[in-house]
């Protein structure tokens, strides 16, 4: 029976970050990955935009930015598309139907949100404080959070506290007239969450995502595969053992403490420290087993909202893709969410576990291929998606803008497929919704926050922890730091 200092379940990017960090600190680490390749869900990230400089520094990773064309193109049925260009975080309109007043206000709203998200961003990369722990460090962190908000000044602090629980539709409708611009910003707020533009808290999600990405429209990119490769190299250099194509069946415990893990093939590895890169529900209900957890804790685990609703669509066409009324050089991120009403209607279907008649899309074009995030395609329990129907709906939207679509190849990855492939209960990008009660020191939920769990020696390091999804790597790093702290 092999013994390790730390075993990491799941070789997602957070698992790799954690293992690299731990092995750099001289620990003997084992990573167990279910699939043939490591990297996990990062495979579906179009290209990365948000690995944090801290990770680059700590692990000595050096991935260059790729220069996408920095445009955001919001498509409109009447072919009067809006094009925004982003130059180092400075937005300007290239083409739009909206009047000057609207343009000005739109940019000022974004500036406001940027300011607020900076305030939140200060806590993004730290371990969130524990409330009522009585420890000085936690208290200090809480005070500094309060102080950062206070420091915004009277007017801005009031504005932040006003919008933080607000739905984005209300704020936009108060300020703008152009449906297209409202749809564009609403899209960024609701993509990847279980919210519609009129759901309370949708502004907070936008601010939060912006704080993680350091940009509202996610534009500075690096190559995913390259990043994962470098992480894997970093692991190999530091003698991390990685077992691929093996699935963990059970986390073994005794007397409320971890003793090791057992694989589906029966093999057992011993360790007093186990980190789970799986989502909280999978970790607690499947890997650990509810039998040894308190009933209140199981309730909270079950109530963790983790229903994914974004599907990934990959299309290959016969000819090079041209978008109507858009210059070929104007490549970038295309968004089809032409107004609050449209998105909200799409969201209505989601509430009743149906996919939207009129899906919203975000897509990138690369010569003959197109890859899109489609929402809302809810995670379904007990039934299957009619995939062809969903693809048809998407194609009928796309064909408004792409003349003569001749599809050679098509592939749809629904939340259910993501669940199956990566063992993520609910197939959620972020392992769980980013909403006010599932953020910061409350993520994923009370009793499991700050990367620790009720079981001694078991830690969470996946997207279910603070700061949530997005390929930041911070979750893995913070969790690894916590393990090092406890190992002492």
């Amino acid at each position, binding site marked *: 029976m092999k013994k390790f200092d730390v075993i990491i379940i799941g070789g997602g990017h957070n698992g790799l970050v954690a293992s690299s960090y731990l092995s750099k600190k001289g620990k003997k680490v084992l990573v167990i990955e279910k699939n043939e390749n490591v990297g996990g869900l990062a495979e579906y990230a179009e290209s990365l935009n948000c690995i944090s400089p801290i990770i680059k520094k700590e692990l000595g990773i050096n991935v260059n930015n790729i220069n996408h064309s920095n445009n955001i193109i919001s498509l409109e049925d009447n072919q009067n598309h809006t094009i925004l260009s982003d130059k180092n975080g400075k937005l300007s309109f290239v083409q739009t139907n909206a009047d000057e007043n609207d343009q000005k206000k739109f940019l000022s709203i974004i500036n406001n949100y940027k300011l607020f998200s900076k305030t939140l961003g200060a806590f993004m990369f730290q371990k969130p404080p524990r409330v009522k722990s009585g420890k000085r460090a936690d208290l200090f962190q809480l005070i500094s959070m309060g102080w950062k908000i206070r420091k915004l000044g009277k007017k801005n602090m009031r504005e932040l506290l006003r919008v933080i629980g607000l739905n984005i539709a209300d704020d936009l409708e108060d300020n703008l007239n152009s449906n297209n611009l409202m749809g564009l910003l609403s899209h960024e707020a609701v993509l990847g969450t279980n919210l519609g533009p009129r759901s309370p808290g949708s502004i907070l999600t936008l601010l939060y995502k912006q704080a993680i990405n350091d940009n509202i429209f996610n534009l500075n990119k690096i190559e995913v595969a390259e990043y994962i490769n470098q992480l894997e190299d970093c692991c190999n250099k530091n003698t991390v053992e990685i077992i691929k194509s093996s699935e963990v069946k059970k986390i073994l415990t005794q007397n409320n403490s971890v003793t090791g893990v057992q694989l589906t093939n029966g093999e057992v590895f011993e360790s007093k420290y186990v980190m789970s890169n799986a989502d909280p529900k999978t970790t607690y209900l499947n890997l650990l087993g509810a039998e040894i957890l308190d009933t*209140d804790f199981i309730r909270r685990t079950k109530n963790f909202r983790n229903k994914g609703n974004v599907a990934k669509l990959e299309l290959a066409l016969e000819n090079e893709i041209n978008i109507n009324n858009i210059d070929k050089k104007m490549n970038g991120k295309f968004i089809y969410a032409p107004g609050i009403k449209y998105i909200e209607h799409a969201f209505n279907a989601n509430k009743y576990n149906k996919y939207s008649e009129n899906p919203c899309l975000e897509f990138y074009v690369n010569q003959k291929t197109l890859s899109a995030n489609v929402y809302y395609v809810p995670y379904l329990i007990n039934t299957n998606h009619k995939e062809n129907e969903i693809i048809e709906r998407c194609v009928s939207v796309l064909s408004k803008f792409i003349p003569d679509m001749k599809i050679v190849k098509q592939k749809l990855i629904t939340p259910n497929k993501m669940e199956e492939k990566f063992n993520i209960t609910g197939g959620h990008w972020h392992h769980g919704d980013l909403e006010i009660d599932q953020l910061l020191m409350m993520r994923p939920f009370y009793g499991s926050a700050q990367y620790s769990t009720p079981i001694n020696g078991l830690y969470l390091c996946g997207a279910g922890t603070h700061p949530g999804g997005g390929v930041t790597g911070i979750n893995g790093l913070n969790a690894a730091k916590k393990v090092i702290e406890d190992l002492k």
Partner: protein
Amino acid sequence: MNTSKISYKKPLLETPFHERTSEHCYANDWYRWAGYKVAKEYSSTELEYTSMRNTAGVIDITPMHKYDIKGEDAKKFINKLITKDITNIQSNQVAYGIWCNEDGMVIDDGTIFCFNENHFRIFCAERNLNWFSDTATGFNASVEDISPSIAALAFQGPLSCKILNLLKVENIENLKPFHFNNYNIENHNVTISRTGFSGDLGYEIWCDPSQAIDVWDSLFKFNRDYKVLAAGMNALEMVRIEAGFIQPNVDFMSAEQALRPNRMRNPYELGLGWLVNLDKEYFTGKQALIRHKEKGPEKKLVGLDIEGDKPAVGSVLYDNSKKNQAKEIGIVTAAMWSPVLKSNIAIGFVSKEHYKLGSNVYAEIYHPEELDYRKIWAECKVVKKQFFNNPRRNETPAFT
């Protein structure tokens, strides 16, 4: 539950015994228990109490919540739920247990009937379906609320066995305390358990609702010689205080219902530490209970023997015989003048410095006298909660 019987004009359900209980209930004084109507007082609380202490009393306890736990993991489920270890429980045995939340605070207590390894039944006063169902996560065990399908009577008192004997319930005298079995009362199949709330010999009878009236009538059959009375909730309250049984949401707030966290109580505070087995591998609240035990209770539920004869209902407890120097140290949760013990008794919380048996504390009793209160400063001695515990309760064969 037959909800069709409920309407806005008739918001409470009637138990299968209602035809009889309503005949007996001259006082027409009803109590609302889990959506049912049960008698608070039939004609005279004192008489009903006396019947339970001298012959036998019949109490309609149908509204009790009853949950069937079935499946391969039924026993494992119970062991996770309650704080006590029931690994060695045998068929036809009854266990008394409490269950706590993750903070080690008591949610409710109940009796657990073991039919076999794969089938248990839990009887409790509060609704617990939600808690049980969530606790069953990960176990191969189903939880079903079967409350409406069973009619129940408590038959308590020194002559209860004698009367069952007269009814030719075979071998009933050999039923041991905390056991149950199937019996026959005048051609009706019933389940009888030797359990109860009175601190004396007594039984609880479980039957199909369709047979309820016949079973009720049988128990009153020998009333020419043995004056069996229907007893209401008030009389039950008297015997349970004497016996030292505690009641959720009366003596303590159920952790599932308390709104204020500092109103919840752990087993050590309730004097139920003997029901907690910290050696057991796992149960909900274990980690918290280890801490609670280490720390020791800040306050404790104790029995109080109070001077005088004025019941200390709702009294505040103090530490000094001189009122002007006294500090508050506790509160009375239930109090009565005990006719059978001829003493003034109470159950109450007393703080750390004073809960040792034999300590003296003082109660300020507000005694109503013709639209005015007389304030009495009464000395109380801290005693065991079990004021009344007749040896008959545990003897087998039972007293006939």
